[in-house]
């Protein structure tokens, strides 16, 4: 591990990779700061720019953007009370009151430095856990991969938002879209009216359509309504060290919570930040300050949501299972580079995971310096007029989709899926399960059919493997989780006032 990690550092200490790290971080801050954009859309928008790049450069840029965009969501949360990402909701509860008290600079400083500490500690945990996990997964066969894909799909329950049936419907839509193209076993075209569809629905244009074009249509709907008042920023750089001494415990605890929650596919940064916030409030000596401008609240939320990013990379790199929509887009980016994420990644292309590890460790100081230095610029991003933003995002998607295959077919796919995504959002059907199914569908079908052919059509043979059985049990538990949570919530409601108070914050 150490030797590979040193090689990873050697790889990223080259100019193109350092520039990619810098570019990814700056783009992440800019995109994350704008409400409505965020990490998923940001990573999807950057993917087309990485086609011609070396895989290491491309992945370092994308992961840096993912990390910085997750932080960027805190900027609009603190300055406008409008979280740029779902994971920054808890940040707004204390960040915005601090901003109203004239401490916007202090709040931004706390959030940037806490994010950096969370990202660094979780990167260490990622290196420590991802490698053994991938070594364990090397023993997997077709049956285990099918069960793994099924487990990944079962996470739809966490990504479904308000309604599980709608989430399941979205997953089925994604799985049906994934069936378009050549049959993976006998090679006949399915659901393909024209030959362009034989290779299936192109993943990146599909993601650009579902996320970016649908967001453009939502922005158009809002028109010029979304504008922000300029906020005066002072004291971003002048926060005394003693302020951080008070936060030491919160920073360590929130990093651990963020990483563990991030590893659980489907749980994600938003849940991590809420749990860390609640935990910080429970153990604080001044719980009454939470919700009224507590630096501890900002630190807990921001540390956890950035730690969850590294956590989400563990199942992605070690098992090839994307635990979130952003991770699914990263899978698409790796696939375009001809690299299959999963246990073999560490054996066949060790330079990719280890350069990502090295970039996470090296990128943190860079993220903090750029974040603190450019605070005034990020704050200005929230004032970009919506029409201009929408037109630039739309046109970038258009060129990006074209660049995937140097043809106009992906542009058409992107437009159709964009309109579809917009209508699905209007019908309250979540998009994240579609993305997850688009990535995991082919893996599930191919491995199920391979396993059945090997077992001569005996379905019960799928249950003969202990790992498969364990994964099936986890899938069932994952699907049942919303029901269990609902029941537990009913029982625990009177005993857990802290969580309710946190949840009830403005």
């Amino acid at each position, binding site marked *: 591990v150490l030797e590979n990690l040193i090689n990873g550092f050697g790889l990223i200490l080259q100019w193109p990779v350092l520039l990619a790290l810098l570019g990814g971080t700056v783009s992440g801050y800019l995109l994350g700061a704008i409400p409505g954009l965020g990490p998923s859309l940001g990573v999807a928008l950057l993917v087309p720019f990485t086609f011609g790049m070396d895989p290491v450069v491309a992945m370092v840029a994308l992961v840096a953007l993912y990390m910085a965009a997750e932080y960027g969501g805190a900027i609009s949360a603190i300055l406008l009370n409008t979280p740029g990402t779902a994971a920054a909701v808890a940040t707004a509860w204390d960040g915005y009151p601090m901003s109203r008290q004239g401490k916007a600079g202090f709040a931004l400083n706390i959030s940037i430095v806490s994010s950096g500490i969370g990202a660094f500690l979780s990167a260490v945990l990622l290196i420590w856990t991802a490698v053994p996990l991938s070594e364990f997964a090397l023993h997997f066969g077709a049956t285990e991969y099918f069960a793994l894909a099924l487990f990944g799909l079962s996470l739809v329950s966490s990504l479904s938002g308000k309604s599980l049936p709608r989430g399941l419907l979205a997953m089925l839509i994604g799985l049906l879209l994934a069936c378009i193209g050549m049959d993976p076993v006998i090679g006949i075209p399915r659901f393909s009216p024209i030959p362009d569809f034989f290779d299936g629905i192109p993943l990146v244009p599909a993601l650009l359509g579902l996320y970016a074009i649908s967001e453009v249509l939502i922005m158009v709907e809002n028109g010029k309504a979304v504008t922000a008042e300029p906020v005066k920023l002072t004291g971003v750089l002048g926060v005394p060290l003693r302020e951080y001494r008070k936060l030491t415990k919160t920073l360590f605890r929130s990093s651990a919570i963020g990483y563990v929650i991030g590893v659980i596919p489907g749980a994600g940064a938003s849940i991590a930040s809420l749990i860390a916030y609640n935990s910080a409030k429970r153990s604080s000596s001044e719980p009454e300050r939470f919700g009224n401008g507590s630096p501890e609240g900002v630190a807990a939320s921001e540390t956890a949501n950035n730690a969850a990013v590294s956590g989400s990379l563990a199942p992605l790199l070690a098992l090839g299972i994307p635990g979130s929509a952003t991770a699914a887009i990263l899978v698409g980016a790796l696939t375009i580079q001809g690299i299959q994420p999963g246990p073999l990644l560490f054996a066949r292309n060790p330079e990719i995971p280890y350069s990502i590890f090295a970039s996470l460790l090296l990128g943190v100081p860079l993220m903090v310096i750029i974040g603190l230095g450019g605070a005034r610029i990020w704050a200005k991003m929230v004032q970009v007029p919506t029409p201009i933003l929408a037109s630039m995002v739309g046109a970038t998607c258009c060129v990006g989709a074209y660049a995937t295959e140097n043809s106009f077919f992906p542009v058409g796919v992107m437009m159709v899926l964009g309109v579809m995504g917009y209508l699905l959002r*209007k019908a309250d059907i979540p998009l994240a399960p579609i993305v997850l199914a688009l990535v995991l569908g082919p893996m599930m079908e191919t491995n199920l059919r391979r396993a059945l052919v090997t077992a001569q059509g005996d379905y019960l043979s799928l249950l003969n493997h202990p790992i498969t059985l364990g994964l099936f049990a986890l899938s069932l538990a994952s699907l049942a989780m919303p029901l269990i949570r609902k029941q537990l919530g009913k029982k625990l409601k009177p005993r857990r006032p802290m969580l309710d108070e946190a949840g009830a914050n403005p």
Partner: protein
Amino acid sequence: MKTRLSALFILGAVATWFAWQAANMPESMNPSDVGPGRIPLILASAALILLVSIAIGTWRQRASAAGSESASFPRPGGTLLALCGLGLTALTIVHVGMYAGCTLMVAAILLAAGERRWWVIALCAAGFNLFAWLCFARLLQVPLQ
């Protein structure tokens, strides 16, 4: 509610098409293999069952007081203009090329979002084309037609 039911109806039509196509697919030569149509048929059937149950739930919500929320379209004119712009771009981009297509798209989205100053529209379109040429055509060597 009408919007949601319409969306569910369209999805139902698409799922039916998938199920019909899957049911007509040939069987695999290998008896151990489920064949190309079985899995999509199961998925499409499950989607149809879910759609019906969601549609019934949506219909029932209409009757209750709690079900008064509905999908809203705050600026239908602007959204329609943007959709037309996207459609027009998708249809014409093959013939007019990437730069003209993007100009059309930028203008359509800006107009749809409420921007009426012609110089802003012209500046944005020109600025984007310059960015696309620099970034994609020059730096990334993607030949934009």
